[in-house]
């Protein structure tokens, strides 16, 4: 058994990589590709400056690399085993990576014989006077690093801006000379085409302008390298404690899920905001489904063919086939609208007054009864929970009923009856226990769905849960968020499947994984 579980766990790693890779590539290959939301700016008037802004963002988030490279980089970041220079962690908990080197400027052979040499890290020593406390030392180190980090960002930004200007110039000349195929599908200049048609540019009246801009770019590149050298030197002097443990070649540290570039917040924060809400809804909904559906299923099995059996079956199936969006809108329109019943609030998780409430119900200073924060919350989730619940009865009660009926026809039931065991005991102790098997499996498959959230219900009731987060990450083509969500949902699914298999073995002695 242990070996089996270990093997399954190890197999999960390639499976997860496969799943995330496929999902990522599907999104990346869709029109616009990763980061499309940053580029699409319909209705936005400033167009020229957009190129520069786009270049900035692409540089910041590495969106200009090909999709598979982006995926592999992500994999490297989340992998707990890391190779190469170790990251450092600053006091606010942020990962500080070894600074990125400046990118080689395009078309440099047009302007100079050879590129300026790559700078080497400038060895750096913190200038610390004696008698400082540890906190002051950390503060000074961090300040030295930050100052240089800003200087390097500035140099890099200058390089990006100058590259955008060069691109614009080249684009203009190419357009005027009707040069075809100069741009790829995202509107970026294809430098290989430019190089092949160098004569077009050389013969253009603005060749000197191009030369001048190119030289500025090369200078900016050299400056960026210089600043990089200084920054790298400071980084190597370790201004912050290193992350995880290990050597400078291989180390183990916690995975870094990165930052969502459409919301510019850490992915972990976004998920940890959304997940408690989704879990809360499902923690209320799932027991309700079980407590209603299983007894009904049992009763229907015991009295198979009776009026109750037929009516409950028909009723649950009717509920199951009722579309959730319609139910949600009807619930809001009638149950929440003060013009009709107005029993429940329409949206949100708390009412305005709830901030002044204590956690539990209480009597306030004026002697009035206050429902308290907890009850207020439960009152607010009533309608979403209702919509989550009603469709779930049918499947579970039918499953219970079928499993029970199967068992009723078994020999051991006949034997028990024959030896005079009471009817209730047979139903509860013998038949029900043996019918639990499919129910366990069902619970295990419901569990991942609980974390993934329900898109429709969350949308209608404006519940900021996981379903909406995942949907947004797809719509906005947000790489980090999408991959982290996929990884989480896939991981939970795989674990749930493993759990189901283990539970099978535990519940049914006929199954073993030897």
């Amino acid at each position: 058994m242990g070996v089996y579980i270990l093997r399954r766990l190890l197999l999960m790693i390639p499976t997860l990589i496969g799943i995330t890779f496929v999902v990522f590539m599907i999104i990346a290959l869709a029109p616009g590709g990763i980061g499309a939301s940053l580029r699409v700016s319909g209705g936005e008037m400033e167009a020229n400056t957009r190129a520069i802004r786009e270049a900035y963002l692409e540089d910041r988030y590495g969106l200009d690399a090909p999709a598979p490279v982006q995926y592999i980089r992500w994999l490297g970041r989340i992998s707990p085993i890391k190779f190469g220079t170790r990251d450092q962690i600053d006091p606010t908990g942020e990962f500080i990576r070894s600074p990125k080197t400046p990118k080689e400027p395009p078309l440099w052979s047009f302007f100079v014989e050879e590129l300026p040499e790559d700078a080497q890290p400038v060895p750096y020593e913190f200038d610390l006077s004696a008698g400082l406390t540890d906190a002051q030392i950390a503060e000074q180190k961090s300040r030295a690093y930050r100052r240089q980090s800003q200087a390097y960002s500035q140099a890099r930004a200058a390089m990006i801006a100058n590259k955008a200007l060069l691109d614009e110039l080249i684009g203009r000349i190419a357009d005027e000379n009707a040069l075809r195929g100069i741009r790829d599908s995202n509107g970026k200049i294809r430098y290989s085409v430019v190089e092949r048609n160098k004569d077009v540019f050389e013969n253009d009246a603005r060749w000197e302008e191009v030369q001048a801009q190119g030289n500025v770019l090369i200078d900016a590149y050299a400056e960026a390298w210089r600043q990089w050298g200084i920054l790298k030197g400071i980084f190597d002097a370790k201004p912050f404690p290193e992350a995880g443990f290990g050597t400078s070649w291989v180390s183990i540290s916690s995975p870094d899920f990165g930052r969502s570039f459409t919301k510019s917040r850490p992915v972990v924060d976004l998920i940890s905001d959304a997940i408690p809400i989704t879990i809360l809804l499902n923690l209320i909904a799932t027991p309700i489904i079980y407590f209603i559906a299983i007894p009904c299923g049992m009763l229907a099995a015991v009295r198979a063919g009776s009026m109750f059996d037929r009516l409950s079956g028909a009723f649950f199936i009717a509920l199951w086939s009722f579309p959730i969006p319609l139910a949600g809108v009807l619930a809001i329109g009638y149950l929440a609208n003060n013009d009709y019943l107005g029993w429940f609030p329409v949206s949100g998780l708390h009412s305005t007054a709830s901030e002044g409430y204590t956690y539990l119900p209480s009597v306030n200073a004026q002697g009035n009864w206050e429902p308290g924060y907890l009850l207020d919350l439960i009152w607010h989730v009533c309608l979403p929970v209702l919509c989550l619940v009603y469709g779930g009865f049918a499947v579970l009660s039918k499953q219970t009923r079928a499993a029970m009926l199967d068992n009723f026809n078994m020999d051991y039931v006949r034997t028990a009856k024959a030896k005079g065991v009471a009817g209730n005991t047979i139903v509860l102790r013998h038949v029900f226990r043996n019918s639990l098997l499919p129910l366990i499996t069902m619970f295990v498959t419901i569990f991942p769905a609980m974390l993934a959230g329900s898109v429709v219900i969350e949308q209608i009731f404006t519940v900021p849960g996981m379903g909406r987060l995942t949907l947004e990450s797809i719509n906005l083509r947000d790489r980090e968020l999408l991959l982290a969500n996929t990884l989480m949902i896939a991981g939970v699914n795989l674990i749930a499947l493993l759990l189901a298999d283990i539970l099978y073995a535990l519940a049914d002695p006929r199954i073993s994984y030897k």
Partner: protein
Amino acid sequence: MQNKFGLKDFVLLVLVVIVMVLGVLAMRQDDRRWEQNETLVAKIDSIEQQLARLEGKLESGIIVSNGGGANGSSSAATRDESWVRDPNVEVVWFDMPGFASDPRDDEGYRIGGTFQETFEAQPAKLTPILGEDVYGRRVQDQVCERLAEFDPETLELTGWLAEAWQYDPEGYWVRVKIRDIARFSDGQPVTAEDVRWTFHDYINNPELETESLRSILTQIEKVEVIDDKVVEISFNEPDAYNLQAALQFYILPKHFYEKFTPTQINQATALTMGSGPFKFANLNPDNQWTPGETAVLVRNEQYWGPKPALSELRFNVIQEDVPKLTAFTNGETDMINPSAPQFLEMTERADWEDRAHSLKWLNMRSGYLFIGWQCGPRDGRLTPFHDKRVRQAMTLNLDREQMIRDIWAGLDYVAVGPNNPPSPAANPEIEPWPYDPERALELLAEAGWEDRDGNGILENAEGVEFEFEFTRASGGQTAERMQKYIVDRCAAIGIRCTPKIVDWALYDQILKNRDFDAITLGWSASAPESDPKQIWHTDSIQNQGHNFIQWDGGQDQYIDGLKAELDFDKRMKIFHQFHSLVHEEQPYTFIRVVPWKRFISKEFTNVHPYPKGLEQREYYTAPMQAN
């Protein structure tokens, strides 16, 4: 099977669980009390501070400003102009900012009340300049202030944090004097250093994610501190839009933001502090507002300007239409943006008048919807629309009033040009083209398009049939209805129109590659006048600019003239000429201007729609008439 789990064990177990749950709940209860205590203590702290300052003022014998009356400004005689750069250049002075319609003398005016506004989409963050969506900006506008604001009624640029400025007639610099009494919500004064810091170390800090504003403000060369309250902003080159740009970014408190690392600011969701009438009660970076929660602003008790009556502003999000309206009728929210059918349906109800202010008006942010005709070549071939007469005919052939009535519930206005009607830049003399298919056919015939073989389709002299592709973005019922209407109208006069429906992500590529015959799109506006260069100049035809229709009809003289003209009235004259040209040439068929629609609860009084938008700071609660 001897150790049976009996009923007694079960009851015991349940009891234990209940005790544990109660324990946890009691702990939560205590935590909450503690948190509420903390907020109270913070509030008392801020009140004490304010008291101390007031006392200091009283002791030193300074006349306490009345905080925002129209008479609060210093008279012309006492104005100190020693700070100016060039004594020969006119200095523009501004009175103490007030209310557009002052509620304070109204009968029944009272302080207090909570105003809850509902957004249709979730702002990602509320930190100033980093959170750049419309909704984020609406919250920030209540918390942060700029050197100058547009006057709500006249839309003129008026000094707000700035008491006066001197603008170089050549257009190379502007020197700004900040009001002495302006202070941030923590009581610290707004200084010239804050302005410099905001521009150079916040907006232009490459480590902060302020790219979108940074890339727009490239015309500002530097911001220099002249003295504590005087700052000079210099420009790279003169441009009519410089002044607006220089005075229209939020001024942030240096002393507050300096405490945080760039990463902390980048990741903050609501690290928002400014000098505005409202403030965030909670500015702890570890425990801020997060998307999904209701954003709560409280009145800035130390506000230097006209103090609002409302004590709290709240912002929540409801995305779907039905819940949004239900929340409003239930009184769970005080302001929503209803859909067009909802607006019509509710305003027809008999008792609606007593329940809500139903506002529908055009303002400086109203955008317009248009069809752009491909005036240049597509794939090296000219489309029929390169001829101005054809474009005019296309406009004449569309009954835009009927479209608005049938497709958009009749609430919108026919658009006439590139600037929306409330803007001074719109030429008031221009009437929209009429609906006249006869005249359209005549114009088409003039341009050489006639039904020569009698098959019902127009041909040109070479016998090529008139057909074109109409590109629109996928999604939306109204867009589909509009497309059907256009196809119908084209068929009616013998033009074959093929709709092409594409995804948004692809739309951008189509625009960049100019790969369309006719396309529909909307432009939004954010200021009373915006530089038409990006959209209309022939420079923007090249290099994937936004003149994707490749229109070249002599517009450049006006657009270049606009940029060079620093005088407002003369500039407006050029704008009007430009507007006439666009109207005559019809590179776009302007379809509709979309007014803002709002329902605001009748619980609030002094609600006025302005060309600038809404001014929540003027509202106050009045007892409901009915009920």
